[in-house]
């Protein structure tokens, strides 16, 4: 009897945790091509719009005693500026606009993705990989421009015995290429995992409609779990944007001062 109701319940529940990540064209049907306007385009555009509202319109008053939106803008600016200064040093401040842009885009895209029915652009590896590759290429080019071929000394460990150095150089080169991979996978993976977990719990929530017995226990539990995971996701959204920005700073520091 119990197994019977259980089987019925499973048949009635709908599990589609990954459907929220589907990229679909907004206008008309058909394949997604290079310049097709999709939900990803829409939500990236919305992120830019929100950043514009916060940073440009919000801070337009330039009041001595800031309004609410102006203090958000000032807090974000001060927070990132201090981070760049602390991690990269005084000469890294020249690259502050780039890091600020990255941070604001990721944090706003993450928060917008938490809205119900929203599409999380940063959950796609395509988006995060482009950002990570841009950082990787920029930092590598910068390293060569600033230090010339001396930048290659990062891979040539002069403290090791001479015979080991070519092997160590190979290892160092590989670990240099680990950076953009881990940089992009971490952000996309964190966002995707959290959102998928919320969806899985959400699929359990309507169980009370199917079988009142187990449902009375499972439904409140799953709603509680959704709330808890959602709170965690708010935290993760911010932390992941912060981690992306701080790692960019660390890579920048390595490019500017390769000798330590």
């Amino acid at each position, binding site marked *: 009897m119990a197994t019977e109701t259980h089987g019925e319940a499973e048949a009635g529940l709908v599990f589609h945790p990954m459907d929220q990540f589907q990229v679909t064209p907004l206008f008309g049907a058909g394949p997604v091509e290079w310049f097709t306007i999709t939900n990803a385009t829409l939500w990236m555009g919305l992120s830019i719009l929100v950043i514009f509202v916060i940073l440009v319109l919000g801070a337009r008053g330039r009041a001595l005693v800031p309004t609410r939106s102006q203090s958000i803008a000032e807090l974000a600016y001060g927070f990132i500026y201090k981070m760049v200064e602390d991690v990269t040093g005084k000469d890294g401040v020249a690259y502050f606009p780039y890091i600020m842009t990255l941070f604001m885009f990721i944090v706003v895209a993450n928060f917008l993705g938490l809205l119900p029915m929203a599409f999380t652009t940063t959950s796609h590896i395509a988006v995060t990989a482009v950002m990570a590759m841009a950082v990787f290429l920029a930092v590598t080019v910068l390293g060569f421009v600033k230090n010339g071929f001396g930048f290659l000394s990062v891979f040539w460990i002069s403290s090791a015995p001479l015979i080991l150095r070519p092997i160590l150089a190979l*290892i*160092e080169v*590989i*670990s240099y290429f*680990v*950076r953009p*991979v881990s940089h992009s996978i*971490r952000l996309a993976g964190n966002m995707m995992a959290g959102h998928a977990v919320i969806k899985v719990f959400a699929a359990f929530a309507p169980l009370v409609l199917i079988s009142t017995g187990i449902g009375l226990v499972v439904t409140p539990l799953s709603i509680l779990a959704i709330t808890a995971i959602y709170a965690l996701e708010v935290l993760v959204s911010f*932390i992941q944007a912060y*981690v992306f920005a701080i790692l960019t700073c660390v890579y920048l520091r390595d490019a500017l001062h390769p000798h330590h």
Partner: protein
Amino acid sequence: MANMAWRMVIELVAGIVIGFGIGYGLDWLIGTLPIFLILFTGLGFVAGVRTMMRTAQEVQNMHMARAADEKEG
């Protein structure tokens, strides 16, 4: 802290995957299938461990700095 653990795991796995990719690519070019694959997967693993250890060092430095701050303040 869970965040740091994730970072280290991804770095380790990424190292192995990149090493595997390089090795497989070289074998595909030269036609010596298992040799470079094994060699570079091993190197990739070492590179992953190195990156991971560097991250651990970073975490430790951060903790030491915080502890020093608390002692002063």
